C-alpha cells in the first residue's frame, strides 16, 4: 500500500477524534520512570519519547486478570453464567515492531484448537498502529529473530518517524487502510527522508541469527548446559509477564462476598515451580533448569514446530529486566554457535 505522511499535530488530532468517537486508545504514558501502554482520555497524556515500554502492550488483548465465569449460590444449588469479554473498538497506538509482531504468535495460540473468545473479541476490535524504531535500545535483537525495527508485521498502520518532521505512514492491512481513509485529510504525500532498514540495522548490536535454533536446541535437550545456564534463575514470572508473546494463564476460582464466586484467568509462567505441579504432589519439571529449558524450547523449538513462527520477537525485555540478567539472546546464541 502507498506510503503517506502525517505530522505530529495531525496524529494527535486523529487520536483525539478516535477517542471522542468512543474508541479506547491504548498509548504509552509516563508514570514516574515507567512508560507503559494504558487507555488515554486525550493525546496530551501520551509519552512520545521512549525506546520501549517496560511491560509489553499485550494486556490490550490479554489482560493480566479477567473474569471468565461468574457464579452464585442459590437456594437449590449453584447458578453459573458465562462472563462476556469487555471488548469494544480499540487502538493500540505506538506498538514497537517487536510487540506488534508478537500479536501474530498470540493469534496463532489463542485460535489453535479452540478460539479463546476473550482474546479474540478484543483482538478483532483492535487496530494496531505500529511505531518503527529509528533508535533501537541496547537490549533489542529483533533482527536476530527475523524481525526488523521497520517491520510492519502485526501492525495495521506503521508509522516511521522521519528527520524532517512527523512520520511516514503506511497502511499494512485493510483495517489500517480504513482508518487512514477515514482521516484522509490528515495525511500528505510520502516524505523524502524515510530511513532505510539497513541504516537502522547498523545501530543494532545483537544480530546473530537465531531463526534456525530448533535443531541445535532439540539435540541438546538433555545436555548439562541447561543447568549451567539456569543455575542463577530465581524462578519468578518477570520474564514471562513482561514478554509480548508469552501467553500462559492460570485458572482460579475466587470467592466474592457474599456467596458468589468468579473464575479468573490470570497470567502464569512456566518458570514458576508450581506451573507443572500436579495435585498428587508430583512435578514433572522438578528443578529450575528444566523450567527455564522449557521457556527457551517453547519459544525456539516447540512453537515454531507447531505454528511456523518463533515465539520471541527480540524485544530484549526479559534479559534486561530479569533480576539476574539471564538473557535469552545469549543463551540461544551460545547453543546455536556451539
Amino acid at each position: 500500500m502507498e506510503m503517506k505522511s502525517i505530522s505530529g499535530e495531525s496524529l494527535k488530532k486523529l487520536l483525539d477524534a478516535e477517542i471522542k468517537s468512543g474508541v479506547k486508545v491504548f498509548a504509552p504514558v509516563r508514570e514516574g520512570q515507567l512508560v507503559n501502554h494504558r487507555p488515554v482520555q486525550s493525546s496530551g497524556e501520551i509519552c512520545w519519547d521512549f525506546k520501549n515500554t517496560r511491560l509489553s502492550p499485550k494486556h490490550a488483548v490479554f489482560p493480566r486478570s479477567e473474569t471468565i465465569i461468574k457464579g452464585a449460590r442459590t437456594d437449590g444449588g449453584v447458578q453459573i453464567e458465562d462472563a462476556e469479554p469487555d471488548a469494544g473498538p480499540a487502538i493500540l497506538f505506538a506498538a514497537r515492531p517487536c510487540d506488534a509482531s508478537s500479536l501474530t504468535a498470540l493469534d496463532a495460540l489463542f485460535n489453535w484448537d479452540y478460539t479463546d473468545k476473550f482474546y479474540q473479541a478484543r483482538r478483532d476490535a483492535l487496530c494496531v498502529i505500529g511505531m518503527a524504531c529509528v533508535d533501537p535500545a541496547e537490549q533489542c535483537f529483533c533482527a536476530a529473530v527475523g524481525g526488523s525495527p521497520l517491520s510492519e508485521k502485526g501492525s495495521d498502520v506503521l508509522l516511521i518517524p522521519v528527520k524532517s518532521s512527523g512520520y511516514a505512514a503506511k497502511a499494512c492491512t485493510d483495517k489500517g487502510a480504513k482508518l487512514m481513509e477515514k482521516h484522509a485529510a490528515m495525511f500528505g504525500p510520502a516524505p523524502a527522508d524515510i530511513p532505510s532498514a539497513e541504516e537502522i540495522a547498523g545501530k543494532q548490536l545483537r544480530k546473530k541469527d537465531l531463526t534456525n535454533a530448533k535443531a541445535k536446541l532439540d539435540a541438546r535437550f538433555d545436555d548439562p548446559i541447561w543447568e549451567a545456564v539456569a543455575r542463577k534463575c530465581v524462578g519468578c514470572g518477570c520474564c514471562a509477564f513482561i514478554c509480548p508473546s508469552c501467553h500462559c494463564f492460570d485458572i482460579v476460582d475466587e470467592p466474592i462476598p457474599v456467596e458468589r464466586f468468579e473464575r479468573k484467568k490470570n497470567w502464569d509462567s512456566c518458570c514458576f515451580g508450581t506451573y507443572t505441579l500436579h495435585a498428587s504432589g508430583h512435578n514433572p519439571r522438578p528443578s529450575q533448569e528444566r523450567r527455564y529449558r522449557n521457556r527457551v524450547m517453547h519459544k525456539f523449538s516447540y512453537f515454531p514446530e507447531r505454528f511456523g513462527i518463533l515465539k520471541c520477537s527480540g524485544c530484549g525485555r526479559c534479559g534486561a529486566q530479569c533480576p539476574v540478567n539471564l538473557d535469552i539472546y545469549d543463551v540461544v546464541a551460545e547453543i546455536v554457535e556451539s
Partner: protein
Amino acid sequence: MASEVEQRIRDTARKILESGEAGVVVGYGAGSTPDKVMPVFITNPADVEKLVWNDRCYNNLSLYLTKPLVRKFGKVAMIGKGCDIRAAIVLWQESQFPREKTIVIGVDCGGVAPIAGKPDDFRAKCATCDVKRPPVCDHLVENPAVDVKPATTAEAKDDGLDSKSPAEKRAYWFNQFSRCIKCYACRGVCPLCYCDRCIVEKNRPQWILTSPHDLGNFEWNLVRAFHLAGRCVQCGECTRVCPSDIPLAALNRKLAGVVRESFDYEAGRSHETEPSFLSFKEDDAEEFIR
C-alpha cells in the same frame, strides 16, 4: 583490564577453589549488555578471570545459599557487600544454611550506582550504610578507594508517609500496588523469601488471592512485608527488580523501624544476637504468646 580489587577477588577465589575450601564461588560477572552485571558460579580455578567488581554489582548473592543447584557443590563461597552478608547472617540464624559451610568473601563497598530509568529508592540503603566494610567475613577484600567509615546520616530520608493519615496511606499504597503484576520477582530475588511453598501457593484454603487485582495485590504485598518484618536486611533487591517500580523499600523500612523501636533489634547485625522472631520467654509481657 582488571582493577586492583577485581584482581584481589580473583586471587582469593582461586585460592579457595584450589585449596578446596569451597566447591563453588558465587560472584559477579560481566552482564549481557555493557551496563549489566550478573551472578556467576565459578567451580574451576581457571575461570576466576570471569569475576568482576564495580558499582553495578547489585545482586544479593546470599540468595543462592538456599538454592539446590548451588548447594550441591558442598561448601559455598559467596562474594558480598556488607548488606548482602547481613542476609547471610539471617540465613545462618534461621538454620537455612550452616555458617560452617559458608565462606564469605566480603568486599569494601562505597555504594551502588543509580540505574538509568529506575527510581532511586532501591539504593536508599547506601546513604545510611554502616557496613561499607563487611562486619563478618572469612576473606576481606579491601578497596582503598572506599572510605569505609559509616555514613554520617544514620536516619533514612523521611519518605513523608508517616505523616499521612490512614486514609491517605491506604490510597497511596492501593495506587502503588495497582501496578503489581504478581510476577513475584520481589520474592524470587529476596534471600529471605526461601520458603519451598510460599503462602500465596497454599490453596487449601487459598489464604491470599492470586489474582493481580486490587485486593489480591494488597494482600500479597502486605503479607510479604509482614513475613519480612524483623528479618529484612533492607538490601533493596526487591525494590530494584520490581518491573512496576513499586516502592517496596518504604514498606520494609517502616517495619524494620517498628521492630527496632519495639525490640531494639536489627536483622543480620551479628550472628550472636538473638533474632526477635526466634526468641521466646516464658515471662513474655504478651499473654497470647505465653
